């Protein structure tokens, strides 16, 4: 049992090589946070019928089946590191049976684009260094939604119209309990803990996998890793992946929106100053 103390950094390390796609994390999250169901529809995307993280789905298990794709064998495989596609399951390396599963979640970024975009202060950084929306402050302006480089936060347009996302179970942490998804994960694919400990553990796990003959293993969102670019990282919820980030619907090198504020404003004001000079010339010249 991890001791949860305010003032320390907590997060998730999601080791996708241990994920079996049971979706217990999705269910536990919905149960604890009282989130409504998203509907019984089927997407046709393997076993993934949640489709994406949303205002009412704070964990989302992605399923990528790489078995029997005839087109990928025609010399355009996504990368050298990927498992060879095109064969039957029996003729491919046994590890993971070429079936990738990954439980996605809010990354609780080091510099969070949603928090930096929020004009009301509804989004704030907690004493556990996580990023949470205060529901009694949010006025549903929706600016955090396109700001997020990972497409996580969303307005609940069919519900209360406010922004929602994973809170890293802020209420449970305050009570000394680990988040519901990590508690429910039966394979320890989702590991909760102090960020430093998790990073150390994740580094060891990557080394172990490399040693065991999984050269594709790498961390997404760890210090200096893909996903942790432009001061966004290290992500407080980070992942061990074995294919390109895009395969899991993650950007390889996201950028921080707030860094575009100052240059844009200065360029705009410079243009207006130029046009103001033109106006001044027109009016001064036209004076009788």
């Amino acid at each position, binding site marked *: 049992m991890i001791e949860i103390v305010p003032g320390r950094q907590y997060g998730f390390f999601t080791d996708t090589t241990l994920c079996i796609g049971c979706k217990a994390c999705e269910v536990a999250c919905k149960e604890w946070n009282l989130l409504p*169901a*998203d*509907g*019984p*529809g089927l997407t*046709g*995307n*393997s076993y993934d019928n949640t*489709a*994406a993280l*949303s205002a009412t789905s704070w964990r989302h298990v992605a399923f990528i089946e790489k078995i*029997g794709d*005839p*087109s990928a064998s025609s010399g*355009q*495989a996504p990368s*050298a*590191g*990927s498992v060879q596609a095109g064969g039957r399951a029996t003729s491919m390396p046994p590890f993971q049976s070429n079936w990738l599963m990954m439980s996605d979640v809010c990354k609780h970024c080091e510099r969070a684009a949603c928090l930096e975009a929020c*004009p*009301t202060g509804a989004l704030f950084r907690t004493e556990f260094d996580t990023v949470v929306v205060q529901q009694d402050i949010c*006025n*549903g*302006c*929706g*600016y955090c*939604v*396109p*700001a*997020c480089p990972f497409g*996580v936060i969303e307005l609940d347009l069919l519900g209360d*119209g406010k922004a929602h996302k994973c809170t890293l179970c802020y209420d449970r942490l305050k009570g000394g309990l680990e988040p519901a998804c990590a508690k429910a994960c039966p394979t320890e694919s989702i590991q909760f803990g102090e960020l430093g400990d998790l990073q150390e553990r994740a580094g060891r796990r990557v080394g172990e996998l490399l040693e065991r003959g999984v050269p594709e293993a*790498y961390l997404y969102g760890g210090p200096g890793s*893909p996903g942790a670019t432009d001061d966004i990282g290290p992500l407080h919820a980070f992942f061990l992946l074995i*294919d*390109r*980030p*895009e*395969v899991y*619907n*993650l950007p390889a*090198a*996201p950028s921080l*929106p*707030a860094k*575009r*504020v100052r240059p*844009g*404003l200065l*360029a705009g*004001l410079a*243009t*207006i100053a130029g*046009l*103001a000079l*033109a106006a001044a010339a*027109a*009016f*001064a010249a*036209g004076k009788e």
Partner: protein
Amino acid sequence: METPYGRPHRPAPSPTRGEGAPRPSPLVGEGLGTSALRGVRGIPTYYGQPAIKAGHYRWLVVSYLFVGGLAGAAQLIAAIADLLGGRRDRAIVRTGRYLALGGALLSPVLLIKDLHTPSRWYNMLRIFRSTSPMSIGSWTLAAFGALSGLVGLGQALEDLAGLAVGRRLARLSGVPAAAAGALMSTYTGTLLASTSVPLWSTADRLLPPLFGASAAASATAAISLILELAGANRGRRRLAWLALACGGAQLALARATEREWRRQGVAGPIEREPAASIYRYGVLGLGAAVPLALNSVQALACRGWRTVSVVAAAATLAGGYLERALIVLAGRDSAGRPGDYFHLTRGAHGPTIT
């Protein structure tokens, strides 16, 4: 499909398929054959699912970008005409100030209506956050509204009661109001650019100048249109010169923005119909080329024509609105294209597998 919670299921968008990709075998799901593993431009996507979320901005925000920008630029033009213009320019000053006041009153209505919890609009003024263009904009609009109110009050005192104190009040508050107006007309470009949407974020140094030039052109057109319709445009040629400067800048910046979108490989949303035609004929043709031609005639000829002024002004206003609408709505399209986003965020070293 409605659930007991009233929440329809989100259907997955059809996968984007690279050009000339072989058809996947019927045994393989449509999404898997090409999009999940290969995707577009050699970068895979996850069943063509969007990688970021688009946000909800539609007509209310489009209208605010137009109205707020126009009001800001109108206040700036009024202040310059007030300080540097002659007696003939008083009508331009008056029209600009009332336009700015009208826009400053309409803007918060549009923005508050766009909130999903409008009763909490005042939380916008709860904090100031320099990393958030939304916060910068809220405070700018609040300051601009208050100052435009003072300017409008002064102008009304002068117009209705003939008080000299009104004129002094309007001139004194007109300068800070114009400064706030300059920010009003440009920050909205940064508002869009400081997101993760490919179409907006790639033009982070071009959208604010473009919106500023477009706002100045719209404000000039609106002042000119009102004066023409009132039958009292004594500043026709000066306004035509100003419209030429703003329109020229707007056209050049629009072309530069388009080039930047192509260079960065995110121009898809404005290259497909109907966006492509609206952009070419509506924004560039009607909104920029037509007024430029008409205003050139107006500025160079020894006399002006009322009809020419009216047509040029109306075309500028329509084009300016279309420009904001196109950029906002095409941004929604852009956010739904994981290929564009992953192309943009591919990093310096290509595939990231070690």
